[in-house]
C-alpha cells in the first residue's frame, strides 16, 4: 500500500482517500471471495460430501493446503515488509505527511472490514446452509475450508497489517499502543483458535447443526470486539482535529466537555 497520489506541493486536502487504491482493494478482495464462492459452487456438492473419497483429497484438502501455504507466505511478506520498512523518523514527519498516512491507515482498515464482512457475514451464514443440510463427517468441510481457513486468516492478515502500519508509520501509534485497535484486531483473530472449541464440541456432542447452540457463542463474544473500532474511530478523529486545526479555532479535545 503506497501513500496517496497527491504530489508534494499540491493541496494536501485533495485526493486524501485515494479512490484508485480503494477501488483496487474493493475489487481484488471481491474477486478473491467470488473465486472461493464459485469454487464451492462447482465442487462442493460433487466432491465435498465424503471426506473419505479420493476426490475430496484432490479438490478440498489440496485447496486447504494451498491456502495455508499462501497465507503463511503472505503474512511473512506483508508483515515483514511493514516492519522492515518502518519509518525510524516517524516523530519528525510533517503534519501533511501524517495526514496522508492517516488516510492510508483508513484504506488498510477498509480492506480489513471488507474482508470481515465476507468472513463474518457472507461465508459464516453460508456455513449454515451447508451444515444444516448435510451430514458433518470431517472438521474440514467445503464451507469450513473457505470460512475458517480462508477468509478468517485473510482478515487477520489485513487487520494485523493495519495495526503494524499504524505502529510503524504514525507518530501517535508509534509512541503508545491503541487499546481499542488491539481489541479490534486481536478479538476477531481469536475466533480462529475458537474454531478448536467448535470442532471439539461437534466431534463429541453436537452432530446436528443448531446454529444458536451455546457451543457457538465463543464466536459471538469475539465478534463483539469489532465494536472497539468505535474507540479507534474517536482516537483517529481526535488526531485529525489536531492536524486540521485552524489558527482561530478552539482546539477540541476529548476531555473538554467533562
Amino acid at each position, binding site marked *: 500500500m503506497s501513500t496517496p497520489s497527491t504530489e508534494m506541493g499540491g493541496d494536501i486536502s485533495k485526493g486524501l482517500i485515494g479512490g484508485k487504491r480503494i477501488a483496487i482493494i474493493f475489487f481484488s478482495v471481491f474477486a478473491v471471495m467470488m473465486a472461493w464462492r464459485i469454487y464451492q459452487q*462447482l*465442487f462442493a*456438492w*460433487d*466432491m465435498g*460430501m*465424503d*471426506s*473419505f*473419497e479420493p*476426490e*475430496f483429497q484432490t*479438490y478440498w484438502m489440496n485447496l486447504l493446503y494451498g491456502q495455508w501455504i499462501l497465507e503463511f507466505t503472505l503474512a511473512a511478506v506483508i508483515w515483514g515488509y511493514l516492519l522492515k520498512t518502518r519509518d525510524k523518523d516517524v516523530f519528525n514527519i510533517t503534519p501533511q505527511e501524517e495526514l496522508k498516512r492517516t488516510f492510508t491507515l483508513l484504506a488498510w482498515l477498509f480492506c480489513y472490514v471488507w474482508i470481515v464482512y465476507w468472513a463474518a457475514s457472507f461465508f459464516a451464514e453460508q456455513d449454515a446452509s451447508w451444515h444444516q*443440510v*448435510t*451430514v*458433518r*463427517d*470431517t472438521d474440514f468441510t467445503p464451507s469450513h475450508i473457505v470460512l475458517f481457513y480462508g477468509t478468517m486468516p485473510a482478515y487477520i492478515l489485513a487487520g494485523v497489517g493495519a495495526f503494524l502500519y499504524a505502529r510503524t508509520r504514525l507518530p501517535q501509534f508509534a509512541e503508545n499502543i491503541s487499546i481499542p485497535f488491539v481489541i479490534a484486531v486481536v478479538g476477531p483473530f481469536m475466533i480462529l483458535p475458537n474454531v478448536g472449541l467448535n470442532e471439539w464440541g461437534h466431534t463429541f*456432542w*453436537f*452432530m*446436528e447443526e443448531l446454529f444458536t447452540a451455546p457451543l457457538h457463542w465463543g464466536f459471538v463474544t469475539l465478534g463483539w470486539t469489532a465494536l472497539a473500532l468505535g474507540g479507534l474511530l*474517536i482516537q483517529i*478523529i481526535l488526531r*485529525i*482535529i489536531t492536524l*486540521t486545526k485552524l489558527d482561530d479555532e*478552539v482546539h*477540541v*479535545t*476529548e476531555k*473538554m*466537555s467533562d
Partner: protein
Amino acid sequence: MLNFKKSVLMLLAIMVGCIALYAAPAMAHGEKSQAAYLRMRTLLWYDVEVSTTKLKVNEELVMTGKFYWFYDWPSNIAKPEVAFLNIGIPGPVFIRKASYINGVSGTNSTRFDIGETYEFKVILKARRAARVHMHALMNVKEAGPLIGPGRWVEVTGDMADFTNEVTTLTGETIDLEHYGLVNAVKWHIFWGVIAAAWLLYWIFQGPILIPRYKKVKLLGDEADDMITPANRMVGLVMLIGTIVVVTWSYFNAYAQYPVTIPLQSGQITIPALPDAARGVNVEMIDARYRVPGRALEFTIKVTNNTNSPIKLGEFTSANIRWMNPEVSQAEPADSHDPVASNGMSYEGGAVMPGQTKLLKATCTDAAWETYRLAKLIYDPDSRFGGLIFFFDEEGNRSVVAIGGPLLPVFI
C-alpha cells in the same frame, strides 16, 4: 509490472481448463466417518429398496425398508427418545411428499423403543437435476444422524418445471415454491426504503462525523441543542408513521388470513412390528476378527423353536451385507452398495426344529477395512453388533440381533 490483461487471460484459461478436466461424476457422502461401534450398534437397517434410480423432475420415488434399534445400545449415545425419520440428500434435490413409519405419518418426531423393529416408507418427488447418493437416515436427538444404506439416484430435467402444489384447508391451491414470497419481499423493500431514507437524511447533512464531534465537545452539556426542532419533528413523524403502518399491516393480515394456526410440534409414539425372530434364539459364544484375513468369525448357540429347519443366510451390520449364497442371494445395487454376495459361510448345517446347536460362521470381505469397520478394535468400546438372517425351507425369514465383545486376531 506484469502484463495485466495477459495474466487475467491466463488465469481464466487455467480455470476453464480445471473445470473441463474435473467435470467428473457426483460423489457419495459421509457415512464412513462415523465410528464403527456407532454404526454397528445403534440402528441396523435392512430390506432397503428404492422404486427407481432414474427419474425426471416432478416424478416420484419411493424408498422402503426396515430398521431395528439395537438391543445393546452404546451407553454414550442418546437413546431414541426423540427421533425423526429423514433422508440424506444434498439439499432439496427431492421434496419429501410423505413418510410413514409402520403406516403412521412421519411428519412429527417420534419416540422409538430399543430392541424393536419398524418399517418405513418415504415418498419423494424429484425437484432438481442431479446425480446424488441418497441415504435412508434417522436423526436421533443428541445422537445425530444415523445413516442407512445409500443408492445412487439420477434426476434429469429442469428445476423450473417443478411445482409443489397443495390445497389449504381454506380451499386455496398454492405452489409452495413461491407462495408468500412477493408479499414478504414487498414489505422488506418498503421498510428498507424508509430505513435508507432515514440514514441518508443524516448522511446528507454531512460532513457529519468530525464537525459534529467537535460541536458535541464544544457545547458540552448543551450538546442536545444540536438536534433541531425540525429533526425532532422528522423523528415524531417516523415514530407515528411506523406504528400506524405496523398496526394497519397487522390487522390487514388478519383480515386477509382469518384462519391461521401456530406451528405444529407434537410428538408421537408408534407401536413396533412383531418380533422378527419368530422363535429363533441365539446366544453369542465368541467372536473374533481376523485382521490379515479381513474376516469376522463368530460362534453362536442357536435354538430353533419354529417348526421348520433353518439355515443361516446373511449377516448384516453397518449397512454392509455378507451373504451366504447357498441360502440367500443378493448383488450390489450399484458401485457404492457394499454387498459381499459370497462373503459368508458357516459350519453346522441346518438347525432342526427344537434343536439347539453351535454354528460357526465366517464373514469375509474387504469392506471390513475399506468401510473402516475393523477400526472397531481401536474404539474405546470394542463390542460389535449386527443382524443375522435365518431362512427355513419355505423361505420364511427370522431376523435375530447378535453382538458382543470382539477380539482381534493378528496371525
